[in-house]
């Protein structure tokens, strides 16, 4: 029977000096984590009840949270972040799945292609921002040049400068940088599926579409779940690319929640309000991560 990894019994180290042994190993790690992730959260909680200005801080009770409710810019930023997350997620999933299926089939030089498609993801997001700012530039950019080559009139196409298109343009950049992430996970998921079900399906005479729907997709579900959930976390925290591409402009069109909190804290020196905003975001991601961990742990038990 497959033995669940039963940890070594403490007495394995029960000798006088060794009873405390596990804690000796864990202590530095716990201390550092407490200092760097837990204490800041308490600090944040306290901070959100104060109004901080360069001259000093004053207790403000729930004023920051009250302001948050009526702050149009906050809800706009949150809304845009969610729209951004949802659209980028679907695109990245579809493209990632297509690329994974493509490379899972017999293509020459498969590992070379895999390494190449990996590159955008390894890149610093800042550099991705630089590249696409080059491409999107209405006059110097290669995108408009290519479109002109194809006979389009690009005089009205300004991409990052046009509020109705800017958000989509930033989505494309994120899709460019992070589709390889989804592709890699799904490819690994595909490769983990054994050959037998496919052979059986072939013998039973199911066509490519039925095989995909009845065999590949269900067996790939855990990998899909992991990829989508991890991407959701990353998309919610978007900052680097938007900072380089548009700094939230034009107007307020591509402002994300992270950028809004950054500006509130470091451009307007309003740490109290920024703390309150961060606290709301913390609550949302905690709920989401709890949901994610429960999902992640469940397949392990059934596998």
């Amino acid at each position, binding site marked *: 029977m497959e033995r669940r990894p039963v940890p070594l019994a403490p007495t394995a180290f029960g000798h006088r000096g060794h009873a405390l042994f596990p804690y000796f190993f864990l202590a530095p790690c716990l201390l550092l984590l407490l200092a760097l992730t837990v204490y800041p959260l308490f600090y944040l909680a306290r901070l959100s009840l104060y109004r901080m200005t360069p001259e000093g801080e*004053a207790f403000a009770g729930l004023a920051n949270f009250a302001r948050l409710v009526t702050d149009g810019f906050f809800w706009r930023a949150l809304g845009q972040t969610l729209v951004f997350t949802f659209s980028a997620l679907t695109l990245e999933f579809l493209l990632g799945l297509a690329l994974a299926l493509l490379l899972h089939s017999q293509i020459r030089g498969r590992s070379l292609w895999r390494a190449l498609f990996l590159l955008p993801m390894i890149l610093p997001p800042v550099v991705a921002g630089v590249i696409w700012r080059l491409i999107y530039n209405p006059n110097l950019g290669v995108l408009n040049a290519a479109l002109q080559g194809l006979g389009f009139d690009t005089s009205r196409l300004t991409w990052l400068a046009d509020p109705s298109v800017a958000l989509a343009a930033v989505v494309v950049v994120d899709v460019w940088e992070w589709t390889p992430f989804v592709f890699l996970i799904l490819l690994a998921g595909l490769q983990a599926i054994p050959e037998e079900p496919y052979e059986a399906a072939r013998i039973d005479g199911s066509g490519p579409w039925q095989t995909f729907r009845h065999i590949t997709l269900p067996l790939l579900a855990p990998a899909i779940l992991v990829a989508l959930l991890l991407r959701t976390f990353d998309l919610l925290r978007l900052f680097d690319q938007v900072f380089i591409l548009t700094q939230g402009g*034009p*107007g307020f069109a591509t402002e994300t929640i992270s950028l809004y909190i950054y500006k509130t804290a*470091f451009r307007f*020196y*309003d740490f109290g309000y920024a703390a309150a905003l961060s606290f709301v975001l913390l609550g949302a991601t905690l709920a989401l991560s709890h949901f994610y961990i429960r999902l992640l742990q469940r397949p392990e038990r059934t596998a």
Partner: protein
Amino acid sequence: MEALTQRRGGWLVAALVVALLLAALLAPGCGRDEAAARSVLLAVNAGVEAEGLKQAARDYERQFGVRVEIVEYPYPSLFEKLLIAFSGTTTTYDLVMLDDPWFPRFAQMNGLRDLAPLYQTKKLDGPDADFLPPSLALCRHPYATGRLLALPYVGNSQLFFYRKDLFEKHGLDPPHTWDDVLTAGLRIGAAEKMHGYVMRGAQGNPIVADFMPLLWAFGGELLDADGRPRVDSPEAVAALELMLRLGKIAPPGYVNFNADEVGAHLAQGTAVMGINWPAWIPTFEDPVRSKVAGRIGYAVMPSQKNAGASAIGNWLLAIPRGSDKASLAFDFLLWVTSPEAMRLSAVRGNPPTRSSLFEDAELRQRFPAYPVQQQALLGSRPRPRSPVWNEIENTFGTYLSQANAGVYPPREALARAQRDIVAILERWNAAQSR
């Protein structure tokens, strides 16, 4: 058995790497101290002014043996870094470059050092009279009358650029009012297949700087005499409506333009008229980089109901209160704002803040626009001296940019801006009264 001993060697290598790393981590601390005694750290705005200051720093080091280390930041990041530096106890910078609208905030924060005592140590009673009064007024807190906390280094004030050759070709005299600008822009633009007007539409500082001359010309004010915002006044609405009409004849995407794009359009000859900073004049006159060398006319801001007034945009140099090398920094400050050094900087393209240099024959020959620049500078107006200017500018700029992008009609955009600016000021006053 050798494997076991070899592994012990592995641990030695690991220990070495760790030691090396720790040294590197802690090194900068002491590294900075030895050289620090004879060096001054200057934070500047990345761009044309920074290049000028870098060359000045090299000359200064050759002459006086004091190293001037320069760190550059783009406009928004510089403000953030300074805000952090001034709010902390110890500051990392010895000399800082301030855009004049930031001055009230940092002065209010008591972050800048009073220059009067430093002048006394040099047996001088204050800055000489050669400095242009509007520029010097920016350096006092409260405005124009208070303590001197900075010296003006770059004398920028907005200039109105127009294609004088095209105006002559179409028999039009240079635009006097903003309506003239619109009509001329439409006519010439259509005739020459060009953009009649180009302006900065990017949210925040850029669009606000380009809107203020319009607002003042229409008789509007951002803050009234006792500091209450009047952004939604009829004059403001009229000014914004005209801006939108100008937007119609501006290059598409102007809503995201900064000085860079405006300059490029004027230099490539794809726009008839536009507002920009004097720092671009050398680019326009340089045949390599510009298709319109010698064909650009310079003028003061067009008027409308009131006389045209350009927004003053001087870069000031100040010494943070927290710096422990004030005297060393003051020596460099005096040197870099002296007539001789400022002349070199002017030659490098940074407009001076001294009238003697504006009237210098040789400089006028090199920079034909100096008389207009001086006149514009003397007639310029500072943006409202509010310590919360940065937040106001950001919010106001967002709504202006949205209005230009058609997200809100002018009246509604200004009403929203008014509401938010009132909230900002209330929050600031609440914090102050504590």
